[in-house]
């Protein structure tokens, strides 16, 4: 969990930087969508999905899940790691 968490936060932060939203702080509790969270639109969500797959070989969106927060993404990989241990 501790290794995955900063990687996910970095990926999301860099994604927001691409969209000129570097001032947005990414926390585990941050919601991915909606104005009270990171406000990712559909294309940014697709980018996040693609970047996660590129980095880890799979991603929660591609697995049919709909993570709502950064923590949900972290949990997806933590669960996968635990399952393969």
């Amino acid at each position, binding site marked *: 969990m501790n290794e995955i968490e900063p990687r996910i936060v970095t990926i999301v932060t860099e994604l927001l930087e691409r969209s000129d939203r570097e001032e947005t702080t990414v926390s585990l509790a941050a919601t991915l969508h909606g104005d009270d969270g990171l406000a990712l639109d559909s294309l940014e969500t697709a980018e996040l999905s693609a970047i996660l797959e*590129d980095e880890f070989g799979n991603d929660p969106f591609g697995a049919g899940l709909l993570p709502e927060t950064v923590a949900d993404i972290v949990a997806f990989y933590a669960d996968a790691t635990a399952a393969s241990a």
Partner: protein
Amino acid sequence: MTTPRTVIVTGGSRGLGEGIVQHFLDAGDRVATCARSETDAVRAWQADPAYADRFLFRKADLADREQSTQFGKDVIAEWKSVDVLVNNAGVARDGILALFSDDDSDTVIDLNLKATIHLTKQVVRNMLAHGGGRIVNISSITGLTGYRGLSVYGATKAALDGFTRGLARELGSRKITVNSVASGYLKTEMSHGLDDAQLNQIVRRTPAGRLGEPDDIARAIAFLVDERNDWITGQVLVVDGGLTA
């Protein structure tokens, strides 16, 4: 020379696809292609030391999603990112619709349209992750003007042009351009159901006075995928010797 781009050309073992692959290899790019069977052209590229580490071939039927997905994975595993995708793979079945078999319709739609959409999705995800790219869909003037006996084929090509426009709008903000090249009648298409009389008629009606060569199309593709041409997207470039002018 600049860093070679990674280029995927589907259906690059013969005909137009072979010409497109050769054009990119000559330009110094890395080229991956696939086809259902290996041809002399593929064997020659594989054996040529000039293309060592710059040419990848996989025997694959793109209409089979598993094989298509594996082809995309192999290219990405080999070269990490894809810079250019040329959706060339296609099949033509001729015959008037009233006598056309449903199996032939499925074959044409499955490869020309569904397989193209499937592989494009995979490559687009890679391009999104890596910050840009160029996509060219090889369509046909039969999708613009129609041609007797090629209604299903023409329908898939018209659909590809619609796919081009929609995808261009989706991806324009991410440095990914999407265009179509609507090819006219090429010498390589003699096997696509057009007989000599039909081809002679086409030549007579073509202002340029000849059928097209694969390199006529390859040069248009090279123009569209030039990294400087990032302000051309969502367009259908007709390359047909003026036939539809």
